[in-house]
C-alpha cells in the first residue's frame, strides 16, 4: 500500500472507532430526550429512533400533572443557595489558610484535607437527619442545601492552590496602605479569584442539581419539596410507572436539559477544573 492510502485507512479507522464510541456515549441521553417526545406505544414497542410525531404534550403533562414545575423550582432554589454558600465559604477559608499565619492553622488545614479522604457515605445522613429534626428544619429544604455545601474540602483545596499562584506583594502593599485582613481579601484578592470561583460555582451547581440521595432522604415524607432528580426517580417507583415510559423520559429530559445547556457553554471550565482539583499535595 502506498503511504497516502495507508494514511487514509488509518484516518478512517480512527474516525469510525471514535464515532462508534461517541454514539454509545450520546445514545442514552438522546434516548431520554427523544423518548419524552414519543407516544407511550412507541416507547413500549421500541425499535424506532425518532418519534413519528413529536408529542410535546408529554412535557406539558409532566410539568403540570406530575408536579415538575414545583420540582424545577425546588431544584433551582437549592442550587442557588448551595452555590452561593459554597463560593463564599470556600473562598474565605482558602484565603485564611493560604495567606495567614495564626495559631491552629495547621490543625484546621489537615482537618479539611482529611474530609477529602474519609468517605462515610450514606451513614452520615442519619445523624444529620436526626439533628435537623432536633432544630426543626426537617420540613424544609435547608438541611439539604447545607449538607450539599458540606465541608467544602475539595473546593477549598482548589482555591488555595490558585491563591498560592498570586503574588504576595499584592497583600503586602494593601497591608501597608492600612487594609485589614478582610479588606485585603475582599478588595484585593477576591476580584482576582473570579476564574477559579467560576469553576467552584459550576462544580457546586452540578453537585446540587444532580444530588439524589440527600434530597430523597429529606423529602421522603414531603413530596412538595422534592427536587427534579427525586421527582424523576419517583416516576419509576410510582404505581403506574410500568405503563408510562414516555412520561418518565419527559421527566428525565427536563432534569438533564439545563445541565446539558450549561455544559455546552462552559465545558472547558468543567474539564480544566477536574484536572486542577485532582493533583493533591
Amino acid at each position: 500500500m502506498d503511504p497516502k492510502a495507508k494514511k487514509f485507512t488509518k484516518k478512517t479507522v480512527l474516525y469510525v472507532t471514535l464515532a462508534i464510541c461517541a454514539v454509545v456515549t450520546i445514545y442514552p441521553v438522546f434516548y431520554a430526550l427523544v423518548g419524552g417526545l414519543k407516544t407511550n406505544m412507541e416507547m413500549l414497542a421500541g425499535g424506532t429512533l425518532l418519534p413519528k410525531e413529536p408529542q410535546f404534550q408529554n412535557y406539558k403533562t409532566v410539568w403540570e400533572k406530575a408536579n415538575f414545575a414545583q420540582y424545577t423550582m425546588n431544584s433551582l432554589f437549592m442550587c442557588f443557595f448551595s452555590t452561593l454558600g459554597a463560593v463564599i465559604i470556600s473562598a474565605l477559608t482558602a484565603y485564611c489558610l493560604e495567606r495567614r499565619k495564626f495559631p491552629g492553622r495547621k490543625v484546621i488545614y489537615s482537618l479539611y484535607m482529611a474530609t477529602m479522604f474519609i468517605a462515610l457515605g450514606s451513614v452520615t445522613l442519619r445523624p444529620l437527619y436526626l439533628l435537623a429534626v432536633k432544630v426543626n428544619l426537617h420540613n424544609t429544604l435547608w438541611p439539604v442545601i447545607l449538607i450539599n455545601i458540606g465541608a467544602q474540602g475539595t473546593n477549598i483545596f482548589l482555591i488555595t492552590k490558585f491563591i498560592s499562584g498570586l503574588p504576595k506583594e499584592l497583600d503586602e502593599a494593601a497591608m501597608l496602605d492600612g487594609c485589614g485582613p478582610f479588606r485585603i481579601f475582599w478588595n484585593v484578592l477576591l476580584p482576582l479569584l473570579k476564574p477559579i470561583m467560576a469553576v467552584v460555582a459550576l462544580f457546586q451547581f452540578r453537585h446540587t442539581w444532580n444530588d439524589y440521595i440527600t434530597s430523597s432522604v429529606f423529602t421522603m415524607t414531603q413530596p412538595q419539596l422534592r427536587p427534579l432528580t427525586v421527582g424523576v426517580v419517583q416516576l419509576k417507583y410510582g404505581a403506574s410507572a410500568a405503563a408510562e415510559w414516555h412520561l418518565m423520559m419527559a421527566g428525565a429530559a427536563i432534569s438533564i436539559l439545563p445541565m446539558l445547556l450549561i455544559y455546552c457553554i462552559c465545558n472547558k471550565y468543567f474539564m480544566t477544573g477536574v484536572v486542577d482539583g485532582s493533583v493533591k499535595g
Partner: protein
Amino acid sequence: MKTKSGLWNSILENRVIYLMLLPGLFFLVVFALYPISWIMKNMFYHYTSYGDYDFIGLQNFAKLVTDSMFWNAVLNTVIYAIGKMVLTIPIAFLLAYVLNTKFRGRMIFRTVFFMPTIISVSVMSMVFYLIFNPYNGTVNQMLMQLGLIARPINWFDGKMSMTTVLLVAIWGAVGNYMIYFLSGLQTIPRDVYESAEIDGATGWAKLRYITIPMMAPITQMVVMLALTQAFKDYENILVLTGGGPNGKTEVLYLYIYRLLFPMGDAGGATVLQYGYGSAVSFATAVLVGVITIFYLRWSKRMSETY
C-alpha cells in the same frame, strides 16, 4: 520561645481571621466531624428505630463477623470496584491517547466523551433501566436484530445484574479519567518523541517505550482516584437494581443505607439499625482506608523498582 500570654496575644491579633474562618468551621464541624463522632459513639450501642438505646460494647462487631449479608456486600464491593477499574481505565487511556493526536474534530469528541460526568447518576440510571429492559429495551432489540443473540437476555437477573451495573458505571466514568490521562499526556514533551523518531521508533514502539512509562505516575493517581470512587458508588446501583436480585449487586454503602433508611421499591429494613449500621459503616471506612494505604504502598514500591 512562646509563652502562654504570647499565644493568647497572637490569637487576639488574629481575631478577624478566626471570624472569617467561622462559617467554614461551622460546616466542617456540623457536616463532617459531628456525623463521624455520632458513628464512633453509636457503633457501641444497640440502637434501633424502636427506641432501644443500650451500651453493648463490641457486640455489633461480633454480629458483623457472622453477618452473611455484610460479607456478601464486601464481596460485591470488591467485584464492582475491580471490575469498574479494570474496564474503565484502559478505555479512558486509549481514548485519551487517540484524542491527544492532532486531527479535525478532536475537541468535539472530548466534549462528547466527558458529557456523561455532568448528568445526574440517578436520572441516567433510570434511563438505563429502560434501555436494558429485557422485553422492549433497546439493548436486547439491537442485539437480536444483529443476530448476536437468539432470545432476549434478562439483564437484571442474578447472573447478569452485576454486568449491567458495571456497564452503566463505565459509561458514566470513562470521560472523567480520560481527562486526567489527557492532561498527563500533554505534559510529555514533544522532543522526546522527536528524538525517538530519529532513532527510528514507530507508533507502537513510541507508545510502549515512551508514553506508557512516562504516564506511570499519573496512572497511579488515576487508579487511586478510581478505586476510592468505586468504593463510594451506590446511588447508581440503588436506582438501577436496588441491590437485587437476592443481594447480587448489593455493595457496602448500599447495605449501610438500607440499615439506616427505609427505601422506595426495594424495601429496606423494617426496623432501622442505627447502632449496627454505624458499626458496619465504621468497618467499611476502615476497610476502604486499609485498601487505599495498601495500594499506595504497593504502587510506591512498583515505581521504585521500575
